[in-house]
């Protein structure tokens, strides 16, 4: 599969440059600081303890991961070189997105240490299974945010612009639920359905709902589709 070849090469390039390590160090450093503050005194033995914090941190780190996906190729004019290879546009987009997912998953795996601490401290009395659903939610929300990041990376060659646009849109998805309080019932319902927090919160509570999985999967598909269309638009003249 050419998708995985592209993803593999992209991931290799990421981990052969200092960028991935800087992002990882920053992520673990800041998360660790939050963890030490939260657990400074008493701590609730709760699987939800860090799930929301990890979601909030994704808002800041995902634009940093996805900003170079296609924007860098445009800036260095290597995108034209890439498209002359026998690969389809969707393969390029999905490959780049998968590489970003790879780095994001490494970040999430590293954050499992916090639950390991809690599990040991509680001598096994912690409810462990919902941690799985919280992580499933984090992976799904990351999928969608990275797809948004890939899309904005495809429309500009400036990485900073791509990151800022991605941040703005994913923050809007995060906070749109709060806007519901100014509207009526139907508007509130619509905004709730659009909001990523509404769908993620269920996973963080320990509930796996196919409806929420569908939301994140289709949201990811939509932004990846738009990225492909953007990539195709270069041939319109």
């Amino acid at each position, binding site marked *: 599969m050419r998708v995985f070849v592209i993803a593999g090469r992209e991931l290799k390039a990421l981990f052969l440059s200092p960028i991935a*390590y800087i992002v990882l160090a920053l992520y*673990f450093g800041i998360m660790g600081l939050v963890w030490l503050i939260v657990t400074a005194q008493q*701590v609730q033995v709760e699987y939800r303890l860090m799930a929301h914090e990890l979601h909030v941190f994704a808002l800041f780190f995902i634009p940093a991961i996805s900003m170079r996906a296609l924007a860098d190729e445009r800036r260095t004019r290597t995108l034209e070189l890439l498209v002359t290879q026998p690969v389809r546009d969707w393969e390029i987009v999905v490959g780049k997105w998968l590489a970003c997912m790879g780095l994001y998953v490494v970040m999430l795996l590293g954050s499992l240490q916090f639950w390991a*601490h809690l599990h040991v401290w509680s001598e096994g009395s912690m409810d462990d299974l919902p941690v799985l659903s919280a992580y499933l939610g984090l992976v799904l929300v990351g999928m969608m945010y990275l797809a948004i990041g890939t899309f904005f990376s495809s429309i500009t060659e400036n990485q900073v612009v791509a990151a800022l646009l991605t941040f703005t849109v994913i923050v809007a998805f995060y906070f749109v639920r709060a806007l*519901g309080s100014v509207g009526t019932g139907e508007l509130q319902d619509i905004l709730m*359905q659009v909001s990523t927090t509404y769908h993620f919160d269920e996973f963080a*509570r320990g509930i796996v709902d196919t*409806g929420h999985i569908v939301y994140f999967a289709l949201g990811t598909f939509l932004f990846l589709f738009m990225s492909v269309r953007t990539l195709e638009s270069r041939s319109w003249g």
Partner: protein
Amino acid sequence: MPDNKKRSEEEDIQETPIDDAVDEAAHDDEGEDAEAPAAEQRERRRDPRDLQRSDASRKIAWISNGLMIVGILLLLGAVGVHIMLQGTARVMWVRIVAGAAGGMFLGAMAVGYRDLIRWLKGRATQEGLISLAFTVAVLAIVVFGVYLGQRYSEQWDLTEDRIYSLSEKSLNVIEGLDQEVQIITALRSSSRAQQTQTIQRVRDLIALYEDEGRGRISVENLNPDRHFEEMRELGVDSSDVVIVKAGEGSGESQTLQLFDASSEQKITSAIMSVSRDTKPTVYFVEGYGQYSISETGDLGLSTFKGMLEEDLYQVKSLNLVTEQGEIPDDAQVLVIAGGNQPFAEDHQRAIADWVDGGGRLLLLAPNRVIDPEGDAPDFAAVLDGWGIHVRADVVIDPESGSFLSYVPIVSGSGIGDHPITEPFRTRSASIPFDPMMTCSLRVDAAPEVPGQPAPPGQPTWLLRTHNMAYGKASIETTAAQEPGDTPGPLTLAACASRTIGAAPMGEDEGPQETAKVVVIGDEQFVANGRIQLYGGVSERTPCRAFARNCIHWLAESDDLIAIPPKSDTPETITPTKSQMAWSRLFTILSALIPLVIGTIIWFVRRG
């Protein structure tokens, strides 16, 4: 050829600057190299009239574009404000602004229609429009897919106590519904976080009932700001209520306020209440110094009465003295809550006969040690033959660890294996008793076989203390343990049941009834003051749930038993210094390791 050349020159002269622009755009498609000489030739051929036309066209284009941009902005703003202010008087202004925006949009199209047409004919435009249409179609499919995903979703609750799912008993109630029940919500959005959370909890809970009760339970959501007529018909004059209504036949309904509607117990009770025809009757014995259901003070039972009424029981008082020991025919459960006077012998005999004949009794035994008069009854005659005896002692629990010293607290292995206690065996529940009023029970039971329930007819302990507790026959001198005190573990609640009318072997079976007895060694176990102290209005208090479950088991309302008190509040621990040290080390290492690896890779690649 000359003719062609001439005609070409004439066409060039007649072309407007806009045509030039379109031509240029068309040539863009062919490539810049081919376009440059042609553009230079045309520029040389232009006369002053063309330049004047060019200026005019530019102005027209500016006006057209300006109108269009202002129109689009106004239209978007009007749509946004319209959504926000829906249902208010300002809608008219929004429509006027939207109309003006539409007018500008049309005006822009009329002024610059030639530009528009040429723009639409451009290759890039056509490709872009096709792509846009394609994207909109995909967006529509995505929205529809999300809708279907929400509509036909499957859900799994991964929490250990299934705190976000309906309990088995609620499911049994739903399963047993023989008529449709309608749940109507009238919930208004709130800007207050706590209110919003409660509303969300109610919505989630109602969604569970709707999901589990397809075909039996229907849900209708009313908007309090719009559905005035429907709310008036239901007799509801406030928002944030949930109405549970029986099918068209009986039309019975119960209205739950927001807080109550967030409780699974209350909603299930309401469903049972509106869907069932008969209500079991619980009588509270009075006349010998028992606590009264009409008393609202700390020592009254009015709160417990209210709880039972919410659970569909008819609750009445029975004064044995005035009724001359007559127990009404409709009595299904008899409750004796304490007492400070000895019962008349014939009244004790009447109760014993009634229970032996298939009646059900909940006895909250009075403490005879602390009774100043020493007249508190021991109910030995009533409990004769049941294998449960009330001891004359005071239970002291020096290791309770409670903020009130010596409060006997039952938890963990002190909770017996019985349907009444089933909900508390799966979680770390603790049931407190009165520090000075609690007496212990002696249960004549065969030795327990681990993992096996007590045989039918044999008395069973329900709650008991740990080994450190003891029962003192007198507390006049000291509360400390002395020789002669009853050592722990001490039984504080027990029950027994017996089948009445069982036919001898080989004979046809006649009608059978089950006589049941529950004894709790604390006369104030369900008093108002106790419920307020340990339970308040919370549903999540094992104390209340245990008392309720006793009545449900006695009345054989088994489908109400075991709606366990659920809590999503996790336990709290304090990490030790050593644990914190390890945690800090891991945290620092997890940040340092990527930095070190990154630096090494950078140096290696640089070299």
